[in-house]
């Protein structure tokens, strides 16, 4: 008979890993093929991008080591800085309009969009997410054209002076591109926020009302904190699509007039394949990647803080 003094009972935290070594080894086998593709078509090209970014290379002839000159150019050349600035201006349109409008709709509805009306709404608002961005670009190019719907509307309400070829206008082309992006992302953000708000316990609103809260207070103290996660998702998605935009600009303006709507994504393409400045294009690509990362990081942190 075995007996021993009762050992001190310690709270034993079960470590995350359970199971045997062998089963863990087998798991590698499942990961390997995906990793191979990922490495071949993402990691290796990314490393190459990094490598190219230190070269002066036209893509054909001899490449020469160029130090950090390309990065210096990206961060000092006024044109390139303007292009990067354009991307951040687009964030203003791509992100702010859908999130603000979505929030407005969500906080007014504050309930399920059930029934046929809800289904119809979801279907229609999702359409821009389903179609290629290229098609959105074409549709809006036509909307913004001299004889397009936008001008038609302006003339109809007596603002003929405002009518113009929007996408060819030095001042208005970038906002116009921004509107296209906002149109694409609006539905998704709205539905996300409307769905998110139904997850907030309605009794919170009742309690707030009993505490004497005004609708404005309800929005600030209940709706906004409750939608934190969804807002973070919307902001993340829209910021990425603004900073990394390519399709819409390529179709709608090709970066023009001048470089007023040029964005880093399109500039990388132009530099690498039209201007044969592979090194500079790669430096811009790396900078773009880092810009996206550091723009997203605080949003993710903000969303996670709650837990």
């Amino acid at each position, binding site marked *: 008979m075995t007996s021993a003094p009762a050992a001190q009972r310690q709270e034993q935290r079960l470590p995350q890993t359970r199971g045997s070594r062998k089963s863990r080894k087998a798991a590698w086998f499942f990961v390997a093929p995906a990793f191979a593709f990922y490495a071949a078509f993402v990691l290796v090209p990314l490393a190459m991008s990094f490598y190219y970014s230190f070269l002066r290379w036209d893509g054909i002839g001899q490449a020469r080591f160029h130090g950090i000159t390309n990065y210096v150019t990206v961060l000092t050349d006024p044109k390139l800085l303007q292009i990067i600035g354009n991307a951040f201006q687009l964030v203003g349109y791509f992100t702010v309009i859908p999130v603000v409008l979505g929030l407005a709709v969500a906080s007014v509805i504050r309930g399920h969009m059930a029934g046929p009306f809800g289904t119809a709404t979801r*279907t229609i608002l999702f*359409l821009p997410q389903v179609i290629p961005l290229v098609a959105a670009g074409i549709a809006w190019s036509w909307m913004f054209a001299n004889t*397009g719907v936008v001008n038609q509307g302006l003339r109809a309400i007596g603002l003929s002076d405002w009518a113009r070829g929007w996408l060819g206008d030095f001042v208005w082309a970038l906002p116009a591109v921004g509107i296209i992006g906002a149109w694409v992302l609006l539905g998704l953000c709205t539905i996300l926020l409307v769905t998110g708000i139904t997850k907030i316990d309605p009794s919170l609103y009742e309690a707030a009302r009993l505490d004497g809260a005004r609708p404005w207070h309800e929005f600030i103290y209940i709706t906004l904190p409750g939608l934190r996660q969804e807002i973070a998702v919307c902001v993340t998605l829209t910021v990425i699509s603004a900073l990394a935009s390519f399709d819409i600009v390529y179709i709608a303006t090709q970066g023009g007039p001048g470089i007023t709507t040029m964005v880093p994504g399109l500039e990388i393409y132009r530099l690498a394949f039209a201007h044969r400045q592979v090194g500079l294009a790669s430096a811009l690509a790396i900078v773009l990647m880092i810009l996206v990362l550091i723009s997203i990081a605080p949003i993710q942190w903000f969303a996670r803080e709650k837990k």
Partner: protein
Amino acid sequence: MTLPRPNTLVARGLIILLMILTLLPFLSMLSAALAPQGTYPNGLQWPADPQWGNFVRAFEVAKMDQLLLSSFLIVLGVVPISVLLATMAGYGLAKLTTNKYKWLYLIFVFGLTLPFEAVITPLYYEVRAMGLLNTRFAIILPLIGLYMPFGVYWMRAHFLNVPHDLTEAAQLDGASRWKEFWHVQVPLARPAIMSLTILLFLWTWNQFLLPVVLVQDPMQRTMAGALGAFQGQWGTDIPLLCAGALLILTPTILIFLMFQRQFVAALMQGAVKG
């Protein structure tokens, strides 16, 4: 909670306004597409004599049948393999949860925010070196790699929620890892796999950057890529361009309407998780 009536009305009004805004560009394209050939149509107006023939002409000019086939082939090349690899890796990574293996997952996750533009230049040289430039494989192979971060992330999230007991029960029942994966895990993952399939289909069909850079011939491209070429060629013929664009939209919209529920669910989850 009963909602105050006026609020509901305001909400409905707002939503209807949003819906009109969403539909307006499509309507404007339709009205332009029905305008007489070669004319410069004016805004949104129902043409006196709708030229439905424009669609026929756009179909022929754009070689829609070939485009559809090409897009279909690309989707067929990308989606099944991507889903399979992502499912396998998601399962594998859900099992490898120790700190020692966390880096592997983090490497995949890092790719989630990566703009495709960041790798497009070297991809061009890589694909050229493989001799695949101007073939559909130039789109298919890189896309599989580029989809791995999201796919793996997505499937891993699913597998983390499958009780570990099921794996162990299968082990005791005599299943090898591979059999357990196919007989137990994959059938259970069906909803997640379905959503992933829908999302990848959509993203592939609409992929633009890769075809523009890697494939010159519009007939080897995706629908979106071909539309870019179509615009380049017929950009000044507004009725034809609009008719072509609408035609190219039709397949996705039809599929979307058919699987509306699944699409919306997938896009929403995709957004939240991605």
